[in-house]
């Protein structure tokens, strides 16, 4: 993966089509995204079925990034697994230390990983997304350390599309959907944070803005 700090992309405000997500198949990729898809596809390996699937999933999230102001893709790879480095405009709660105040970062750099196993089994909800930055995420469903994997649920449906993973991640990080019960194995990766947010439940969700709404700032 490229050095994260070196990624700079000029911003064009996307326009949400009236049909919303249903418009994805008809969204024509812009030149930058078309080139990114082509470059990634050149290195794509695996069975013809898996290569076709990776291409279709990658195309769809690139199209999503063109209609969703809150979602931008910096890099895509598809040698074996399908991987993407993307930015999500979503409030991310962070705690640098036990005695430090809670801070809310305006966006997250996430790593998306879509492995072939998704075609043949219900893959655990921790296997798809990592918060690459900021560090110190303080969230019940994000592990402290280990590269901060995000738990989207105990097991994702067979063949879940990658665009669904993106939208679920937005819901999880913004705490529009959150699992705070540490006694339930289905999702809590940071029990201390779960307790913190149970006490401070009046602060959640961190935003009520929908995924397709315009990003702040």
């Amino acid at each position: 993966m490229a050095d994260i700090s070196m990624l700079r992309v000029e911003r064009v405000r996307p326009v949400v089509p009236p049909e919303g997500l249903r418009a994805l198949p008809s969204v024509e990729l812009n030149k930058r995204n078309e080139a990114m898809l082509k470059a990634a596809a050149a290195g794509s390996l695996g069975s013809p079925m898996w290569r076709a699937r990776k291409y279709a999933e990658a195309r769809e999230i690139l199209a999503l990034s063109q209609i969703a102001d809150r979602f931008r893709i910096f890099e895509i790879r598809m040698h074996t697994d399908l991987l993407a480095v993307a930015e999500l405009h979503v409030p991310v709660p962070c705690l640098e230390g036990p005695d430090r105040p809670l801070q809310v970062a305006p966006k997250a750099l996430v790593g998306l990983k879509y492995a072939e196993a998704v075609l043949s089994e219900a893959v655990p909800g921790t296997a798809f997304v990592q918060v690459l930055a900021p560090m110190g995420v303080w969230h019940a469903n994000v592990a402290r350390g280990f590269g901060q994997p995000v738990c989207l649920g105990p097991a994702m449906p067979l063949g879940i599309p990658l665009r669904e993973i993106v939208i679920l991640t937005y819901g999880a990080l913004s705490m529009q959907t959150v699992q705070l019960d540490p006694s339930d194995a289905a999702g809590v990766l940071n029990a201390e944070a779960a307790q913190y947010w149970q006490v401070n439940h009046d602060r959640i969700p961190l935003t009520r803005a929908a995924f397709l709404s315009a990003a702040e700032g």
Partner: protein
Amino acid sequence: MNNVHSGYAREVAAEAGWQVKNGAHRRERLPQLVGLARDADAELDRLRLAIIGAGSVGLAIALSAARLQVGGLLLVDGGRYKMASLLTHGILPHEAAAALPKAAHAGRLCKQISPRTRVFAYDGPIQAMAMDALVGFDLVVLATDNVAAEIEAGLRCLRLRTPLVQAAVHGETLVAQVRFYRNADAGGACPACSLNRAEIEMLTTGRELKCDGTGAAPRGARAGAVPTRSTSCLCGLAADLAMIEILKYVLGLGPWAAPGRTSAAASGGAAPAGGTACGTPAGRGGDYVLEYAGYTSKAVVTPLASRASACVCDHAATWLSASPPRPLAACSLSELAEAAGPGGGLDRAWFTVDGMVFALAGVCSCGKRRRLNVFTAPGAAGHERCGACGEPFCAEAFFWRRAVAAEELKEQVNRPLREIGAAGARCVLVAGDDNRAVLFSGGLAGRSGPGAMTAHGS
């Protein structure tokens, strides 16, 4: 004694007290089978059977195979006896009470019955075995009600093009069933072909999540936790029916008596033509299901439908087994690719080192990242430590690859495996664009695994 971690079965040693000097030989009881055109002794001496599931049905099949004094047996089961096992398994009360591991115990019994058979036992699920664990077996028997194990065994047999015989019971209707998956090509059926999406999704419910992204317990680890209700006689019947189908296949009897066939084990065998003289209708690739219905006292044979288009298993991929040109740890992946000749050449090759991941980067406790570019266990700590927090850089899921492309390996593709963290590699899969992959086995299979019976000498 625990052999689960290694991913390979342990060979069962003959117990001194049970060594009978002039023991019986199968020739003393094996009948003059009508139509037999092969050397039955040679075929059975050569035969290597792997049995997945050593419960009521699998144990009976194993004992039957031991009484035929087959060449080799592998028993795979992660379970232990319960007191209720006494009701369906061919075991004694003290064995049930001692909660003996099923595979190890079945292995011990088989070795006592047939000291000349090489017997291997694995006390874990098939999903935890090394990628090459079933290499070298002529036929795999599936005798488990764990759907995840069924899918896994089916997939492994498809890849290795090894025939699979599944024995099952339906206690409530007194039905015993045997399915024969020929696996001659990509067009045949597999155990997963008959499962729908909901059934497959159900396999993974209730898995324990791990923070480090290494996933969870093997899929379906909890599936099959409710014991199947059946009777000892029905389980025994399913086992005996399966064993008769196996005998017919191995000795070329009945529908398998195709002219010009010499050895099922050696030639890989041609399937009998559909609707044969002996009455076993063979579907494409010879797949069929034999069902005995207790209520009507009738046995029916029907062809199995060919591969379901929606099957979650990839039927097209084939894995060839090979020995590495030098000890595996001394080989580079480019060297293995050259030996394998993957479709598309090195540029289009990808590699899987069994049980390991290739970590492009690792992260420490304070969140700093560092390039690693080595093979490691998923989530394992590296040697280097962070200058700020003093903690090691651990491999993290987004930056690791279970299957890694030559392009991502960069210069590491030319370095010996032992220099890039994979000194202990048990086997390496080299795949290419043509659905064909080559599985190179390492030292472990040669020493203690079933592979000892094949490519690695015996």
